[in-house]
Structures are given as C-alpha cells and as structure tokens.
C-alpha cells in the first residue's frame, strides 16, 4: 500500500508539479490550496505526511499545524514546511510547532524526497 502525502500550497502551478513528482515517485497524494481545506482533507484522507506552505489564505501554515494537533488522528502526522518565506524568520516557530523539516523554495527534489522518506520511517 502506497503512503499518502498531503500537499498544502496556494500556488496551483507548484502544487501540480509537486503532485506529478510525488505520484511518479510512488506516493499517493492529496491536495489543499488553503488552510481551512487542509484540515478537512487531512481528516478525510488520513495522510502519512503533510507538505505545508506557510503563507496560505484561510489560516496560514502555523494555524494549520495548531489545528492538526487538536485532532487525535492528526497529532502524529509529520509536517514538512516548503515555503518561499525566509527560514531565519520562521524556523524557530516552526521547530516549536514540531515540524520534521523546513525547506525554502525552490527545493532540490532528491533532498525533499529523502526527507519525506525519513520522516515517514521515523513514524
């Protein structure tokens, strides 16, 4: 059974590209383009990992993480941040929120895939 990755990003082009790459790398995917939908989709699809953007409409990345922790089924799901924002300004807060990794766009595909694999193994 394939592992499922939820991609949360409001840049539709980016989501589409990442989606193709993950699928062709053997993952199942789910997609959300805003913070509110992210939680709905996560509860519905039970992803094994979330790739999360920080700047999102309807609840930014930090709000999404906070709300994920409110649901028992989502507490243990690892989160990897993939954002265009400056890591120096957000990495501390992201660590506190318990993210597995933090990447700034554009991210090297192999590095990202390795991080995804590692995070899921740990769980």
């Amino acid at each position, binding site marked *: 059974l394939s592992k499922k990755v939820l991609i949360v990003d409001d840049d539709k082009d980016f989501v589409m*590209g990442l989606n193709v790459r993950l699928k062709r790398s053997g993952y199942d995917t789910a997609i959300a383009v805003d913070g509110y939908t992210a939680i709905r989709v996560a509860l519905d699809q039970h992803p094994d990992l979330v790739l999360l953007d920080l*700047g999102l409409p309807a609840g930014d990345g930090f709000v999404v993480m906070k709300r994920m922790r409110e649901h028992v089924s989502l507490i243990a799901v690892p989160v990897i941040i993939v954002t265009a924002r400056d890591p120096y300004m957000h990495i501390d807060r992201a660590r506190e929120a318990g993210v597995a990794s933090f990447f700034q766009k*554009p991210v090297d595909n192999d590095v990202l895939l390795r991080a995804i694999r590692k995070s899921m193994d740990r769980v």
Partner: protein
Amino acid sequence: MGKPLRVLIVEDSEDDALLVLRELKRNGYDPTSERVETSEAMKTVLAKQMWDVVLSDYSMPHFSAPATLALLKETGLDLPFIVVSGTIGEETAVAMMKAGAHDYLMKGSLKRLVPAVERELREAEGRRERKRAEEALRESEKHYRRLIETAEEGIWIVDSENKTLFANRKMIQMVGYSIEEMKGRSFFEFTDDEDRTLPGSFMQSPSGDFKGQYDFTFRRKDGTDLWAILSATPISDEKGQYAGVLMMITDITERKKAEKQLNYLLDELERTRQQQLQIKDRFLSHVSHELRSPVAVIHQFVTLLLDGFAYDAAEQQHYLNTILRNVSQLRRMIDDLLESTRAERGELTMECKEVPIEELVREALNTFRGCAEAKGIHLSSALPDGLPHVYVDPIRVLQILGNLIDNGIKFTGEKGSLTVTARVFEQNPDYLCITVADTGCGIGHGDLSKIFERLYQAKNVPAEGRKGLGLGLHICKELVSRLKGEIWAESKPGQGSVFLFTLPIFSLSKIWPSLSSFDTPSTDAASLIVVEFFSSDRRLLTKSDEVVIHRAKNILEQLMIPGDVLLPQMGPTSHSDVFFIMARTDAKHADELVEEIRNALSKLNELENSGLSVTVSLRMLNVPRQGGGLWNRL
C-alpha cells in the same frame, strides 16, 4: 667739576644772589641760575626751563616770598622752596612753612644752605617717586577695571563664606540680578545645582584643591537656566589665609541648547536611518519571497521534464506553458521592481501630449482580451461621444490602465466582467475621470486605504491575486500623481471594486509653455493665430453645436492661406468643448488675418444662439524649422 644744580633765585639784590651762589660753589656745586625779582619774570623763567630748587628772599620792592610760593604752587611744580632772608621774624617764618615753604634761612648764616638744599632735593625726589608710583598704580587699576568690565566672561569673587564681594558687568548681565541684589549673598543662592558639582561645596576645602574647571548651572533671576563653565581659583590674604574664590564664568547656554538640538537631530537621523534599514530589509525579504515562488514552479517543471516525467507531447506542452507563464510573471515582477525604484527616486519620465482617451482605453483592453477570455471574463468600455482629449504621456496611461485591468482580471472569478468608463470629472471639469470596475471579490474596508502603499498585499484574497510584488497599485499612484491626477478606489467586499483616476483635459494653455519656449530670436519667426470656442458652461458639445463649429471651420479654412492652416482639433471624431485652430503665417499678415477671422466669425449668429463664445488670439513665435514636432504641427 661740581655737581650741576639749577637754581632759581628770587632776589632784588645782585650781591645777595652772588653770595648764595658762592656758598653753593664752595660746597661742590656748579650752579646755573637766574635771578628774578618780579612775578612776570618768574613766570617766564619757570616756563623756559626745569629747575631743581627755588631760593627766595622774603621781601622785595616788587615781589615777596608768599607771592613767589603762591605762584609756584599755581604752576603745579613740586620744587624745593627755601626762603633766604635777612629780616624776618619767627612768626612769619612759621607762617611761610605752613604755607608750604620747605625751609627758612638767614642771609647772615648761609652755613645751613647747602644741607637744606640737599635735604630738600632728596625729599622732592622722594615725593616725585611716590607720585610716579601712585600714577602707575592708578593707571594699572584703570587698566584692570576696564579688562574686568569689558570681559566677555563673567567674573565673580566671593569671600571665605561664599558671600559675593564682586561681580563684573558681564556676570550681572548673565544672571539678570543687579550688583546690589548680589552683594553679600551666598554664591549658592544663585543656583539650584543639586548635584553640587563643585567639590565639597567648594569653599569648605580651603586648601585650594578645588582649583579647576567645572560645568555649572546657575538659575537666572527670570528662572531660566544659565549653563556655564566655571573656573575657580582660591584667593589668599596677606597672611596666606584662605580668603575666598575668584571665578571666571563662561556662558555656554547657547552651546548647550545647540548641543541638545544637535543631539535631538542626530537621534532623529538615527531613528530614520533605522526605519529606512527596516523598510529596506522588509522590502528585500518580501521581494525575495515573491520571486522565489515562480522560480520554484519553473524549477519544478524543468526537473520534471529533465527526469522524463512528461509522458507525452501534450503533457510536455503543458509543462512548458506553465514554465513560460511563470517566467512572464517573473519578468513582470522585475519590471515592477525597477519601475517602483524609479518612482521612489522620482525618475519616472513623462512625455505629455494631447491624446484622445478612447484610443488608450481601446488599446489597453485589447492587450488583455485574450487573458480575460481564458478566464471567461467579459471586457467592455463605456465612453460617451465627444470626450475632450487628455494631456498625458500615453505610454504611462497605458501602464496605469494595464495595471488596473490586470488586477481586475486577477480578482474577478469566472463569468465576471470588467468595464472601463470615462467622463468629465464632476468635481473638476478640467479633468477626465476614468474608472475601471470589476465584479470581483471586492476590497475590505481595512485594505481600501492601504492598497496604494508600496508592497501592500491584501490578505485572504485568491492565490492568483497575490502573484505579484504588491507594487502595481503603488506604481499606478506614482504615475497618476506625476500626470497631475488622483487615484482612489471604491469597493465593498463581495461586490466588486471600482478604481477611479483623473487625468488633465488638454487645453491650449497646457502647451503654451512649450510653445513659448521657442522665444529665441530667429529668422523663422511665425505668428500663431489661435481660435478657441468655449461653450459658456463648459458642457460637452451637443450635435447642434457641432454644426455651428463645422460652419465656423469652413469660414476659417476659406480665410487661411492654403498650407498655412492646421486644424488639429477639427477631425470628425474628436469633438471637444474647447476647439482651437492654429494658423502659421508671417508676421506681416498676422494682424490682418486676425481681424478678418474676427469679422467673419462675428457674422455667424448661430454661435451666440448655441451658447458658444469664440476668442481669437495672436502669438508671435520663433519656430525653428528643424525643431521637429512643433514645426510639423504648425
């Protein structure tokens, strides 16, 4: 050689005088002398030369010792005066001595003469010495007083109990008290310097170790502070006991104030600099963030293609289109960035000319037609006939319209519409008001006032709307204001937005400056005849007005010499409420032509009937033939 001695002898007897001289010579003197026996003669010799001693007989037929003495005193000379007489009683002698004679001798015993003369010479010398010393002292006191009173520094002397003994004029001026108010009062009553900057309230250390300079604040009589530098020197009395302090005080209040002001300005500068740095940091962070998004997408799809993840040609095509779209977006961002930087530096160039707004609106809409159709958005314009032309840089107006239309499309969903309109601005008929209205998501009240700020991006808007640097509207605002117009927006969330901006309507006065800038003398002198039609209420022309104008135009054309006429505003489509015609002619015929035009138009009763007035004006111009545009226009 005997000692020289200048002797003035007041004596009526030649023999007696010789006796006296002999006595002096016998005692080692070499006297030079004159003998006088009248007041006049004495005055003459006193004035003629200096004397060492006066020897005077007591009574003479025309003179006397008291008179001689009185005369001598009158002259102010301090010479030894010795009475040498044969017939004088003791009482008279005493009276003479009291009157100021120095000695008294009997002619019969001249033995005492020389000792008396020598003693008196010595004493007179002593007196002169003392007088010289006193004068020197007085002179030096005067000198010091002047120094103290004219000093640009305050001088303050206190006694051993800190009580004021003296303050110079400058000091009095500085503290604002009178010397009477200061004298006897403690120095410390003139300050509320709580720190007591002066060591151990300085009089308590009479050892003098407080000598030095201090910053000190006095309290003036009017309650204000006097900032000063005070240098203190202890004073001792003759026995070496501590007797007080001499203080030199320099007013540095102005300097302190200037320092305070300077410090304030420096702080302000630093604050502004910090703010600027913060703004720059935020800007850079923002820009790098926004540029990364399209770069990430391009990176994604390029690697997908490279890794062979596009399975067929259609998929490849799709990926490449996505890349192209994001490249375009990057390019737009970079353009915006440069444009906004130029705007910040005030380097936006403007080349204004007279343009029909309709053309600009049409061109702008055409540029976005494809893009709008792809989203199912209907683009349209509503422009009334006969709009006056605007005086703008057409490229800049296209930029403004482009930004607003692009924005509108971004924030409007499928099946929406976007409309551009233009009308004469109700609040100021010198302007056109252009509106760009969409049926999109609208703008929240909180955002409405901020959308024209640099880098502002509204939150909670569709993702597509955030693809940009947040500079578009800022650039629009800069451009509109450079074109002397204004821009603002009206909106309610969910009910679409309207962006409105004003542009100046073209009138001849707008180009007068550029026309008259050709005022350098030239052989290419030409006269410009301007005919302007005004509707009295500046309303737009009605159809009936058009007919009148048309007739007027025909009359004008008939009057002008063919080839000299330029009718820039008379085209069939570009109606304006202000029409004008420019004719180039040589100076000689210009006046006649103006008169002819006036006469011809005055016969056109329809002009008045339709509420139009006409002005015909004449301007002399020096138009260089190689001047390009302007010459071609005339």
